[in-house]
């Protein structure tokens, strides 16, 4: 009971804190997804249908990663530096309720933009998505996993290091991760790395549920993501509960 009561109040608190920026964040998030979907074909006008499918279904994963692994850890890092995270940790609420509430609000910020971006992409290129109902847990899992990993990074590292690492992650996600291209285009050793990291799995899960007719449902990727999600959440929970 206390858990739910605290969760409800903390969601209200966190949503009100972000409400001034919410419309802007939604707009940026939508434009971000659209930017990838509409921008890549401008860059490479000769893209074939398969490549456009890859881009349109990989963009949502990139968008969610950019929030979870970049915007979120930087915000948490700032909160650590200014002392507001310590204040929230001093409140008489279960740690789990606080984390769940914060993650809920982050998810609420990221998901509408993703959905809108995919819809516009589908209309623009006349893509025939036969969306699976599993898209709901898939998107939730991708958003939650990237947020949990981002939270863990910010919880463990000093702010400046968090900023530097998240910048590096942006480059890695955009340029060297099989989200808008297939893993087979990577060198074999790099393919092995990506089979362990969660990024490729995020792409597979989103595209596999948005367009299962094109890519098939990747059950293994769901498992990989679930493991990373639990790991990220566990590390974050431990860091939030730890007394310095």
């Amino acid at each position, binding site marked *: 009971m206390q858990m739910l009561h605290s969760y409800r109040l903390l969601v209200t608190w966190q949503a*009100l804190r972000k409400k001034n920026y919410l419309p802007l964040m939604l707009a940026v998030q939508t434009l971000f997804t659209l930017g990838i979907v509409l921008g890549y074909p401008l860059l490479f006008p000769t893209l074939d249908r398969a490549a456009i499918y890859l881009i349109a279904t990989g963009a949502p994963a990139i968008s969610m990663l950019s929030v979870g692994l970049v915007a979120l850890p930087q915000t948490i890092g700032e909160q650590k530096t200014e*002392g507001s995270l310590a204040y929230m940790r001093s*409140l008489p609420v279960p740690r789990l309720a606080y984390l769940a509430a914060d993650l809920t609000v982050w998810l609420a910020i990221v998901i509408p933009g993703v959905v809108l971006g995919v819809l516009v992409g589908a209309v623009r290129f006349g893509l025939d998505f036969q969306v699976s109902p599993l898209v709901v847990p898939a998107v939730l899992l991708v958003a939650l996993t990237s947020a949990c990993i981002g939270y863990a990074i910010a919880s463990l590292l000093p702010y400046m290091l968090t900023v530097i690492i998240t910048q590096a992650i942006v480059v890695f996600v955009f340029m060297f991760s099989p989200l808008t291209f297939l893993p087979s285009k990577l060198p074999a050793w790099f393919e092995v790395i990506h089979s362990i990291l969660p990024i490729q799995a995020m792409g597979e899960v989103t595209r596999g549920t948005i367009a299962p007719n094109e890519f098939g449902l990747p059950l293994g990727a769901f498992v990989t993501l679930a493991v990373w999600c639990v790991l990220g959440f566990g590390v974050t929970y431990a860091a939030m509960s730890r007394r310095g």
Partner: protein
Amino acid sequence: MLLQIEELTKEYRTGTRANDGISLAIGEGEVFGLLGHNGAGKTTLVNQVVGLLRPTSGSIRIDGRDMVADPGLARRLCSFQAQAQVPIDGLTPRQAIDLLGQLRGGARADVQRRRERLIEALDLGEWLDVDAARLSGGVKRLVAFAMAAVVPGRVVMLDEPTNDVDPVRRRLLWRQVRTLADHGAAVLLVTHNVIEAERSVDRLAILDEGRVIAEGTPAELKGRLGAALRLELVLDPDAVELPASPFGLSAVPVGNRLMIGVPMDAAGQAVAWAESLKHTGSIEEFTLGPATLEDVYVALVGGSDAGPAHVEEVIDANAA
């Protein structure tokens, strides 16, 4: 005693010993001041009580219960106004206070009633429904205080509650701090504003480099000074040497001032001596007044914290 701290030591991984064998006891209904320079270890102490930091050794008990072993219980029994601003941008004071009251387990109607009383008592009505992002630092601090006071814990810890608050509302705030104690809370007040502390606390401890170097009521601590009066000399900027005190008591330089303890029966002698210094041009002016807690504080920990910022606090406090 409600809050009992014994031999509390906190050593950070860097090797810094921020608290070094601190023992304090604060009773129900008591306002206890914790004074000290920046870096004296005040905030480290408070953060251990509220369960954000784990002590290296020593014990913290509230009502006899071990807070080090159960930090969750510590968070329920303590309400806390942190030194940093509260994260309430986007919320109105009404929303922030109500949310915190309910998070602390208050029923919604009770919390709203308490909030109305606090808003009125602190004269915050005009900002009740204004987004905190548009509030001044002082008003935000008052809202943070109201958040700590709306459903107070057995122990209420206030870390620099009057920072940035205007002189009139500081008085209102101090009245509410006293009300919290009157209702049975033990109030631990962290400040480096000695003048305000003198007026507001029942007892206090002075912390220096992580240790308690003095503890008692303001009157007891002033008694230790051995001087009922304080002669303050404003030195001539060109004066090469500090005037030597003829009274054999404390003489502490604070910026361009020299604070000298003077026994009551030497008041006339002190004025005559200061007049002669003024005549020779060693000083620009002087004042003779009753010794204050500030004199005790400065005598104990030196005047390095009492530069221009401190002078502003003196002016603020006097205006109040």
